[in-house]
């Protein structure tokens, strides 16, 4: 009972400044929206902008190339205005375009004649956008080249069987071949298709919802950030000697610590509950498909962050230090744990270390439900590991805890 009294006292202190509490919910929500918006812009067209200058306007192949670009799912082409042509370099530097393609004069004619001629592509290919754009452009050009090569080979076969009457006949045969090949490329015999492997039925597949990554990510990140308020209360309590005074009352040490732990866990749990609700109803992230599993993950995450908060308040002297350590913990655990960007984006060493962090397991727990559609049972392992971390941090905190 006394534990609860301590908890309630803490809670009333934490929520006293309701504006700050509000902040702890509003901020992560804005972040979620923001990260969802940047990873897949809300505008209809998420394709990378690519500028095109066509110096071969009458060519068969260049026309086809433009057509292929236009059908691309990766890039969105824009014809450069004359004024822009002189400043392609700065347009790329300023990232107005991910890449710029310049098709040289006589491209189609020379290519069909078997000469070496290539479009010039300007891009910063070691930036992600530049790299993706160049890959897409290269793929499209290859298809056009393949069609031309096919037509050439076809013409050679025909020529070997029965030589063409003249250049005009050869040209006509070649162009017919190109037309046929292009038509075939519009619907190639072998195609690939990529699907998310999720047990959520494909209609509702969450992998396209960018919030399904950012919403759990921000929940995890701000669960740690929230310690700034709750751990501050405990440190202030030690500074004002109230903690020491508590020892003169007939309350066990463990009751005092447990009371504070519970308060911090409750705050984080409530914060998560609000964010899960917002994620479910405003962003369409399907947390509630496995409600029990989600509750378990939330509770385990709350307990772990609370023991982290306890550890922080056990180790530091003043309120300001709480802010430093909470911020460091937030940056470290959310970056390493994949709350900012999926760990697969990072290098091997980083993602290996990252997968060891409790935050990574919390992310796993959430994503097993919202992305993989694994149901309640799928969270058992992440929850178990989180609880083990919580116990370890709690042990450390109790060991280092000072009352004065």
């Amino acid at each position, binding site marked *: 009972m006394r534990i609860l009294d301590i908890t309630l006292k803490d809670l009333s202190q934490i929520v006293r400044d309701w504006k*700050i509490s509000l*902040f702890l919910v509003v*901020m992560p929500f*804005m*972040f979620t929206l*923001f*990260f969802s918006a*940047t990873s897949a812009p809300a*505008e209809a067209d998420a394709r990378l902008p690519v500028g095109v200058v066509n110096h071969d306007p009458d060519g068969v192949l260049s026309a086809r190339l433009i057509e292929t670009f236009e059908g691309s799912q990766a890039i969105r082409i824009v014809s450069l205005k004359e004024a822009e042509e002189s400043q392609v*370099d700065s347009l790329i*530097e*300023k*990232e107005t375009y991910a890449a710029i393609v310049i098709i040289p004069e006589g491209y189609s004619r020379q290519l069909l004649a078997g000469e070496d001629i*290539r479009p*010039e592509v300007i*891009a910063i290919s*070691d*930036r*992600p*956008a530049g790299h993706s754009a160049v890959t897409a452009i*290269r793929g499209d050009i*290859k298809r056009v*080249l*393949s069609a031309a*090569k096919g037509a050439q*080979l*076809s013409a050679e076969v*025909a020529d070997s069987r029965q030589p063409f009457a003249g250049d005009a006949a050869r040209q006509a045969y070649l162009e017919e071949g190109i037309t*046929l*090949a292009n038509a075939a490329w519009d619907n*190639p*015999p*072998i*195609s*690939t*298709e*990529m*699907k*998310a*492997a999720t*047990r959520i039925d494909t209609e509702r597949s*969450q992998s396209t919802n960018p919030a399904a990554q950012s919403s759990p990510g921000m929940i995890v990140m701000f669960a740690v950030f929230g310690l*700034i*308020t709750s751990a501050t209360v405990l440190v202030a309590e030690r500074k004002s000697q109230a903690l020491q005074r508590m020892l003169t009352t007939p309350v066990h040490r463990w009751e005092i610590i447990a009371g504070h732990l519970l308060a911090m866990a409750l705050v984080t749990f409530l914060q998560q509950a609000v964010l899960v609700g917002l994620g479910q109803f405003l962003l369409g992230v399907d947390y509630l498909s496995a409600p029990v599993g989600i509750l378990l993950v939330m509770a385990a995450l709350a307990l772990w962050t609370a023991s982290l908060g306890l550890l922080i308040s056990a180790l530091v002297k003043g*309120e*300001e230090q709480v802010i*430093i350590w909470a*911020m*460091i913990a937030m*940056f470290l655990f959310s*970056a390493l744990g994949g709350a*900012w960007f*999926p760990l*697969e984006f*990072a*290098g091997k*060493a980083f993602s290996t270390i990252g997968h060891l962090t409790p935050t990574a397991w919390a992310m796993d727990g959430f*994503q097993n439900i919202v*992305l*993989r559609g694994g149901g309640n049972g799928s969270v058992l392992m992440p929850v178990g590991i989180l609880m083990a971390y919580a116990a370890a941090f709690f042990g450390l905190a109790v060991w280092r805890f000072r009352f004065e």
Partner: protein
Amino acid sequence: MKILDIALKDMLQSFRSVFAVMLMFVEPIMITGLIYFAFGGLGGGGSDGLDLPMTRVVVANQDQADATSGISAGNEVTKILQSEELADFLEVTMAEDEAAARAAIDDRKADVAVIIPAEFSKAMTVSGARATITLYHDPTLTLGPGIVKAVIDGIMDGFSGYKITADITEKQLARQGQTMGPDTLRALAISYTQWAQNQNTTEGASADPTISLRGPSGSRTPDDSPLAGILGPVMAGMLIFFVFFGGAYTAQSIVKEDEIGTLARLSTTPTPSATILGGKLVSVFLMVLVQSIVLLISSALIFKIQWGEPAGVIAMTLSMLVAAAGFGILVASFIRNTRQGGVMLGGVMTLCGMVGGLFTAGFNTPSGTFDIISRFVPHGWALDGWKLAMSRASISEVLVPAAVLLGMGVLFFVIGTMLFRKRFA
């Protein structure tokens, strides 16, 4: 003189405070370091591009070899996937069938499942037949599966190209009243494959047959590592974020002095209130000046970040300082007490940083709408300016965001000072 005394005292206090030093100098470097580490700075391979993630691929080859020709295109695809060239980033295992492959993903034993359909070989040999290769990927992953898809798309385009070549040759010969015959087909296959292989092997080399690729001219020195290309904007984001944070934190010392009673005591000394406030403003400015210089130099040394031409760097540094100092004073003027201050500052600064695009700098090309929103906060202009400076744009181009920053800074400064005067007069 007294203005400087107050400013110097404030700076001395800031340097004594572990919190301020951590916040202003250590954290920005630490976070950039974390990203440096995350994207291969320590994992080797940092010099020759991004460290590609290892993707675990499980292949279910359900292809039935063509009965007549004995061709098994499915085996060919599998062989390519298992080839040494791809072994650096693909770890390929085999599964019995589609169900087993998908189970491997559900059990987190594989990242991508490649399902080669039964009619795959048939599609390669029989005119008009089609096949689709299906890839299932772990829904939490995008990058690795994207790479696998690109690889498979390339292979399949090769197959399709050959098939299309054979088809049109046959079709065109038929119009001439001729048939193809197995010898012609074989010769065609050899010619096309040779050509296709030639295309692939020279890809990326200087003799790249598809395109001639170049970076924007003049701006990037040869030793400019690709990692620096990402780290530059990231560090710029961190620089801006923490310089603004530092400014607001230093400005908050007015509130702190009010709390501990030294502000009132200062008023009992023969020091005009304008001097007291002036000293505080100078200290904010000096603090962010020191902070920016330290961060600019240390990041250039540690991460080899090239901030740009001196003129652009100076213009951006100065205008950022004014904006950060002004913004800090404005924000601090709203803070009632230091207890509230920590969370308030953290919140407002993070929010502005987010809107200004500081946390996503280097990762995404911002969309149009976002580009506009980011202009509402000084952070967005600062990032814009630093990017221009780093790309060595002409000084006149850098001056635009610098001028806007300067204007915003002065405006914030005037409003903030007015609010403070009203509060402590």
